[in-house]
């Protein structure tokens, strides 16, 4: 039992999610989109109309955050930081030039943390044949603990971290402010007080 828990907690999939700011934020926002409207709907102190209205508003806000994150933060900040690091730090640390983009580096990072046997199995898959340069592939195949170039990971995470703050705390509230009210009107949930009055009349 305890061994199974330890194995699950050291799994590569969970580690990749826990060490990646983008994955963290996507999973956290998704859970917020479930948890916050859920808590509002469970609350017995509020009337049914108000519950629906508040829950829909909260859900739409979190959905906007998710959309902003997926469309702006990941492509602009994650990939943008990698490109900037390549441009300005590539002269001092030429190892970054071995990778085409941020995703390729992150795939390499994930493989480098796997055990030799699992790594070889992943590399022998059809779709990963042309993934890395021949030197990198050889390095991954022959070295027990391959170099992980942590600073590239740090650069990508810094970009995602900055982007998450700017996007989720500054951009998303502005976008949601402009879009939520029309969306609520479209769903027929805007102005619950008026509805109540109609019903009572």
């Amino acid at each position, binding site marked *: 039992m305890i061994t199974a828990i330890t194995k699950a907690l050291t799994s590569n999939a969970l*580690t990749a999610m826990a*060490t990646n*700011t983008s994955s963290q934020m996507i999973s956290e926002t998704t859970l917020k989109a479930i948890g916050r409207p859920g*808590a509002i709907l469970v609350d017995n102190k509020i009337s049914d109309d108000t519950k629906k209205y508040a829950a829909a508003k909260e859900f739409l806000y979190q959905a906007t955050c998710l959309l902003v994150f997926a469309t702006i933060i990941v492509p602009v900040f994650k990939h943008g930081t990698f490109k900037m690091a390549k441009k300005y730090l590539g002269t001092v640390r030429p190892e970054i030039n071995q990778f085409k983009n941020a995703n390729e580096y992150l795939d390499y990072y994930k493989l480098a943390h796997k055990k030799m046997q699992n790594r070889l199995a992943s590399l022998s898959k059809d779709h990963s044949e042309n993934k890395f340069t021949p030197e990198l592939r050889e390095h991954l195949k022959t070295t027990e603990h391959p170099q992980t170039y942590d600073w590239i990971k740090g650069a990508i995470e*810094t970009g995602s971290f900055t982007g998450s*703050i700017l996007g989720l*705390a500054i951009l998303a509230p502005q976008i949601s402010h402009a879009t939520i009210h029309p969306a609520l009107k479209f769903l027929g949930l805007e102005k619950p007080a008026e509805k109540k009055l109609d019903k009572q009349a």
Partner: protein
Amino acid sequence: MAYQERLVKTFEYIAKNLKATHTVMAIATVKGICRPTFTMMDKTEKPETKKYTALREGITEAVAIPVYFICGELAGFGAKILRNVQDSVNIKKAKKLAEKTGDIIDLEKIKQSPEVTKKIANNLRFLGVCTAALLVIPSVCSVAIKPIVDEIIKPPKNPDLPKIPPANPVQQIKPIQRPSINSFLGSHGMKVGGV
């Protein structure tokens, strides 16, 4: 050249030390400042509603920051407990095996390495943050926020809603009025034959 090396070292430090709790706490902090500010800047809403909404948003994020920290750190602390339990199980197994084969146990090899413990702690912190986002923060907010906000400012009154009378109004029972002696003295002169 020097600034580039310094930047590389900073990135290395970030890669090794960035935890799930740091990101969510930073976002909650900025959200706690920006969301109420944007709400207060909105010109279409009534000032009372703006104040109420801004305060609610601010308190939500103020609650979220310590909850994220506590959940993350508690979950991270669970890694140490898990390590101790796992080590004791592994040692028991190894001792049983050694009794059969007669080999000598190397405790250092059996014990969980610090790297694995760190990995488990990080993963648990992430799970703790997820639990906080899904369950803990919405529950705490639904219980605590309304009384706090109502204590600071009264919620905006909705003039459109009619006042609903209380469900069971206490009816005042009037005492039975008995004819007093004065009622007999109301008229002058003497009457004959009753009141």
